[in-house]
């Protein structure tokens, strides 16, 4: 099928009243969830999944893409007005935005967040549209060796990027991989770690687990929070779009830098929008002509990292669609949905269902465009959204989670899984074990084992086969370098320190 034909087919898939309605509802939901402090974009995805479970594939994916794009933007709203980031991706510049609010420039801070989020999102989408099909062509030639290295590379990136303790991240990852081992789905077809429970034969259901780890844990954190509620400093906001054109003219380099860096960080497995936004803010300060103004209510950093966190969202979909390796927790959940819908991510998706892939691209473009008017509306209604009381919202979310977990297999066992993983995630985060590597471990466990075992059987004892094919050798060397870098640099430091003594 040629390109125009494909886009025509994708157009028909997306411009369907049902899909557009789903996108609109998801957008409103995402804006709301993002704007409420304590409800993250990942949680928005986890809450949506039980509902998308009952939809055809394209509206299901459209709902997730739209809701997350909106939530990442609207996390800026409470950041600017209450000095509490609505989502972790806004945390990097929350202080900056709040300082601007104190100076009476709340509308500029929020407007910059909105407009440059959309631009960053569109940039990331452009990279996704061009890079993903090209990468898929290459990926078609991959054998189990390349996939083995690729998964290991992805998992090591997840461990090394964005975690304060590499050791704890590795442990979280191993726990996730072990959870992924549960059930019959292994090369031997032998029931592992099922404790004789028939419900565990099919493995730990992904959706109840995600709902537990990202929603129940958040509810638990809310009910034990001892901080007093924040106070709003503004009553009325001006026109958020005034002065945006001037900003775009003044900071073109910052916008481009933020979008590029965000997309690149997004592609890295395990690092998503929050990482992109922190890094971009730091880079922006470094390259700025007026770094001394950062932290005093200066818009430049907001422009750059606002663009970065939304471009990261699209970037994360590149490895997810092409290799089935999620770029962040959100795409980890989305990959679970793709599998459930029979759209198994990987290069063959581009061969067999290209119109679906292009439909996903279109959804990204539409989502980033409708973000502008809907985001404007959300800012206008901000003072009302922020007044929604958490003590009503959180119990309702809890009940919703219970039903959602039940709905996947129509058994209360799903609710049990949700409870266990909710508690696990709560304890993990309290003790500095990051949750994202665990999720990646669960999602990638089956794929890693499959390629590991296939490769081992093919290798027949000769481990050099893992490096025989050129791409496989390259990936292997890069992976091993990343894996052993910390150990090697530690050793070098020890050896250097010794003669000094």
């Amino acid at each position, binding site marked *: 099928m040629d390109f125009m034909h494909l886009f025509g087919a994708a157009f028909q898939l997306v411009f369907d009243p049902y899909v557009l309605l789903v996108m609109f509802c998801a957008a409103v939901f995402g804006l709301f969830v993002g704007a409420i402090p304590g409800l993250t974009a990942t949680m928005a995805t986890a809450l949506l999944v039980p509902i998308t479970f009952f939809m055809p594939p394209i509206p299901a994916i459209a709902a997730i893409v739209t809701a997350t794009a909106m939530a990442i933007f609207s996390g800026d709203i409470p950041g600017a007005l209450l000095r509490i980031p609505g989502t972790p991706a806004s945390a990097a510049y929350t202080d900056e935005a709040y300082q601007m609010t104190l100076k009476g420039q709340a509308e500029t801070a929020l407007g910059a967040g909105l407009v440059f989020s959309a631009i960053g999102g569109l940039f990331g989408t452009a990279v996704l549209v061009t890079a993903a099909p090209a990468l898929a062509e290459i990926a078609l030639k991959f054998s189990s060796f390349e996939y083995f290295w690729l998964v290991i590379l992805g998992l090591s990136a997840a461990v090394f990027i964005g975690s304060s303790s590499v050791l704890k991240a590795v442990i979280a990852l191993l726990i996730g991989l072990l959870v992924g081992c549960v059930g019959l789905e292994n*090369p031997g077809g032998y029931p592992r770690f099922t404790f004789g429970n028939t419900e565990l034969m099919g493995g730990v259901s992904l959706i109840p687990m995600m709902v537990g780890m990202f929603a129940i844990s958040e509810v638990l954190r809310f009910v034990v929070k001892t901080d007093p509620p924040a106070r709003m400093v503004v009553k009325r906001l001006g026109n958020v779009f005034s002065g945006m054109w001037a900003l775009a003219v003044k900071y073109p380099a910052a916008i481009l830098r933020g979008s590029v860096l965000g997309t690149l960080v997004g592609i890295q497995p395990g690092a998503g929008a929050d990482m992109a936004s922190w890094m971009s803010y730091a880079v922006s300060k470094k390259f700025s002509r007026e770094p001394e103004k950062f932290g005093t209510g200066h818009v430049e950093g907001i422009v750059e990292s606002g663009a970065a966190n939304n471009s990261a969202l699209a970037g994360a979909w590149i490895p997810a669609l092409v290799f089935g390796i999620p770029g962040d927790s959100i795409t980890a959940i989305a990959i679970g949905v793709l599998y459930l819908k029979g759209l198994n991510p990987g290069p063959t998706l581009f061969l067999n269902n290209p119109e679906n892939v292009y439909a996903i691209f279109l959804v990204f473009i539409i989502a980033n465009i409708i973000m502008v008017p809907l985001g404007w509306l959300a800012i206008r209604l901000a003072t009302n959204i922020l007044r929604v009381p958490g003590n009503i919202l959180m119990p309702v979310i809890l009940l919703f989670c219970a039903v959602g977990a039940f709905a996947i297999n129509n058994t209360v066992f799903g609710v049990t899984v949700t409870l266990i993983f909710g508690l696990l995630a709560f304890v993990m985060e309290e003790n500095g074990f990051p949750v994202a590597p665990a999720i990646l471990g669960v999602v990638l466990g089956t794929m890693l084992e499959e390629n590991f075992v296939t490769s081992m059987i093919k290798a027949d004892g000769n481990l050099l086969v893992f490096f025989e094919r050129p791409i496989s050798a390259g990936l292997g060397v890069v992976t091993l370098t990343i894996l052993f870098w910390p150990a090697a640099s530690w050793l070098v430091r020890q050896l250097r320190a010794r003669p000094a003594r």
Partner: protein
Amino acid sequence: MRIHDALSGFVLALLAIAVLVTVSQYPPTPGQNVGPSAFPGLLGILLLGCSLLLIWRGLRGERQALVRLGDWTRSLPHVVNFLLVIAALLFYIFCANFLGFIITGILILSALFYSLGVRILLILPIAAGATLLIHTIFYKLLRVPLPWGLLQGMHW
């Protein structure tokens, strides 16, 4: 609730040993050297190594209590809230089928609203409204067979 690294390392090491013991009893795949035990076995060994490292790092670091409870554990309402969330899910797991979704939902929401300090007059109307909304979304729109339980006779 901060658990001392040495203690979490110890628990994780026990988990790793349990995994290794379980895995060692798995039957090999005939004619092949990698069976269902190979991958989890490898993970178990790695986890054991990491947890020993965590114990070592924990013991080397500054001395602190094995379990340090967060601020919220000293405030009774917060502890009650925490336990109530867990109890709510357990209540759902064990009673939803018998009581039916609507009764279970209203009870769970009312208890949590009360504990979180929602105004008394609002508790019941909001709990009922939210439960019915969730029920409509899942039962009517998504066709999930939510249990009717005691209300079986009057289902709609």
